[in-house]
């Protein structure tokens, strides 16, 4: 097991982590600020990827696709906030789960209807194609490094937005006391729409970035959604800082588990069994992590008040 392999796997873990952060940020904001459980977050992720792939194929430009993909997912977010979510804020979580689950089905069938049933083609832009040498040999795809960079920039941007701007102050105020901020004359409805659209746009960004290196197909959002929920539970529901730390934690545990669990098990088991058992162990590691975190910190790593 060379140092280069370990460095590469750690980078892979980071990359998965920042990807998850983009998804988890919107989910945790929606829950923290509006008290909303949004299962349809994966559909917004899918929207970003589908629109980007479609536009990129039509115009030949990934960047135009990216811009329109972000716009489309933010717009889809704003529209479902106004049409559906608004009616759910005062209801209990079960109603929210039911309504947003139905949105998943509507988005999935809508995508079938608009884009067909076959997966769409979307490749990474030429600018980011290629690999750079890692210390100790082996190349690492430039695209994955760029994804890590984008994730970090978004994380810093969100942090500044929430701690340093008027909008961020209102978001924080909305988290602590909804009635009071409304009474102080802030238009809470617009604020909610904005926050929701922002979360949707980040999900769309994740969808585009992932879609370009993975696959753009109906149902692509749901597996990521499950991981994103694990992230926000570990990080503390409603906390952006928690979402960031937990995303990177989950990304690293998942990737390093997949990479090294079979070979570690092979020290004790026959190779055949180790491959099969290792795969199973690797797939439950993040849930074990969640269980351990919840056992010691039931509110998550960075609990928000309330």
């Amino acid at each position, binding site marked *: *097991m*060379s140092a*280069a*392999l370990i460095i*590469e*796997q750690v980078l*892979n873990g980071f*990359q*998965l982590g920042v990807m998850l952060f983009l998804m988890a940020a919107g989910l945790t904001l929606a829950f923290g600020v509006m008290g909303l459980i949004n299962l349809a977050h994966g559909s917004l992720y899918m929207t970003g990827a589908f629109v980007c792939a479609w536009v990129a194929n039509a115009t030949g430009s990934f960047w135009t696709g990216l811009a329109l993909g972000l716009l489309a997912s933010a717009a889809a977010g704003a529209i479902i906030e106004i049409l559906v979510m608004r009616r759910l804020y005062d209801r209990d979580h079960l109603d929210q789960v039911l309504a947003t689950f139905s949105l998943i089905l509507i988005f*999935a*069938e809508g995508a*079938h209807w608009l884009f067909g*049933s*076959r*997966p*769409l*083609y*979307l*490749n*990474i832009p030429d600018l980011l*194609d*290629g*690999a750079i040498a890692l210390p100790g040999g*082996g*190349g690492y*795809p430039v*695209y*994955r490094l760029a994804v890590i960079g984008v994730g970090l920039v978004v994380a810093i941007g969100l942090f500044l937005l929430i701690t340093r701007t008027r909008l961020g102050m209102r978001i924080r105020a909305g988290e602590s006391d909804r009635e009071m901020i409304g009474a102080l004359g802030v238009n809470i409805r617009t604020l909610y729409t904005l926050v929701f659209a922002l979360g949707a746009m980040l999900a769309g960004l994740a969808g585009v970035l*992932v879609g370009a*290196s*993975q*696959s*753009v*197909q*109906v*149902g*692509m959002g749901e*597996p*990521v959604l499950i991981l994103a929920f694990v992230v926000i539970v570990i990080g503390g529901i409603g906390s952006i800082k928690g979402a960031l730390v937990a995303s990177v934690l989950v990304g690293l545990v998942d*990737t*390093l588990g*997949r*990479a090294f669990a*079979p070979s570690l098990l092979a020290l004790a088991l026959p*190779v*055949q069994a180790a*491959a*099969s058992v*290792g*795969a*199973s162990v*690797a*797939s439950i590691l993040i849930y074990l992590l969640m269980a351990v975190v919840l056992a010691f910190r039931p509110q998550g790593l960075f609990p928000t008040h309330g």
Partner: protein
Amino acid sequence: MHFTKRLIGLMTGSVLLAGMAASAAQAQDDPVKIGMITTLSGGGSSLGIDIRDGFMLAVNANDGKLGGKDVDVLIEDDSRRPDKANQIADKFIQRDEVDILTGIVWSNLALAVVPKAVRDGVFYVSPNAGPSELAGRMCHENYFNVAYQNDNQHEAMGEGFNAEGFESAFLLAPNYPAGRDAIAGFKRFYEGEIAGEIFTQLGQQDYAAEIAAIRASDADSVFIFLPGGMGIAFVKQYDQAQLGLPLRGPGFSFSQDVLPAMGEAALGARNAAQWSPDLDNPANQEFVAAFEQAYGRLPSVYASQAYDAAHLIGSALEQASPDDADAFRAALEEADFDSVRGDFEFGSNHHPIQDFYLREVVEVDGVYTNRIDRKVFDDHQDAYVDECSM
């Protein structure tokens, strides 16, 4: 008195006669009912849609007839759920009284539906799923698989590795029954070393960890069984990582339904299948041209199997009605139809004995598709035929 008796006799007789005539006419005109259970929504629906389109292409080309008899094809979507597939099968059998069932894409759904359906006296013609159970100890006289036994493409790929002279293969498949069968099928014929073997999560999209492990190994070739979106994701990431090792897999991994989404990342990948769009026989040329004209896209291997399924049913209907189960079964066993695969016959377990080819992904006029590189198996039969006591 006498007259009245005669009148009554006449009346009864004519009523009876009329009734008989009516039922005879009904038997003549009643279309043969075929129930198609397939996946038309959600993940993997492109496979079910190709199966439906391939089957209906054959039916529509003959004005709604197969083997000269009118057929009524009922199509329902199973959403890839075994429970739903079962419900549809019950409805087709009990309410619609279908004669033949077909269409299921996935092995776990086939195992949920087929054993019960064939026990109810319905014929099942599989256009795709070929789990080892149904080829072996659970085989049934009313079950016919026109596609393959699930292991076949992997076995052909193992033989293909030998033919290409690879000596150190890295194997990758999802951690579920079909994935483990794939690896077992590959090893049944592959003679070289195994450089590494990873079972991934079903539905996994990020393969960075696995690709790094391949890079760190001393493999000279990579075998993947990653159907659908998993394969698209892997192939793109594999291309981005620029490993330069030859990529190989069963035909499912590089089928026409995923090639457009993989794009140039798939170019040069070789894969094993029993059919290819460029197979040189009249039935295939007619099929590929008609499919393209009807649907505006190239057919996948799944569409070719469903097209063959329809023609197989047609060839049997020409000789017998499904009401005469023994005669109909005997007609199916003959497999007297022009398969798009060329040579085609059934083994004793009602699974095909057929040729397998190594195909290569190429770009033809801006479209990514497969072309035959060489034949790897002549008249290949599955490994489970001896377990079937039929």
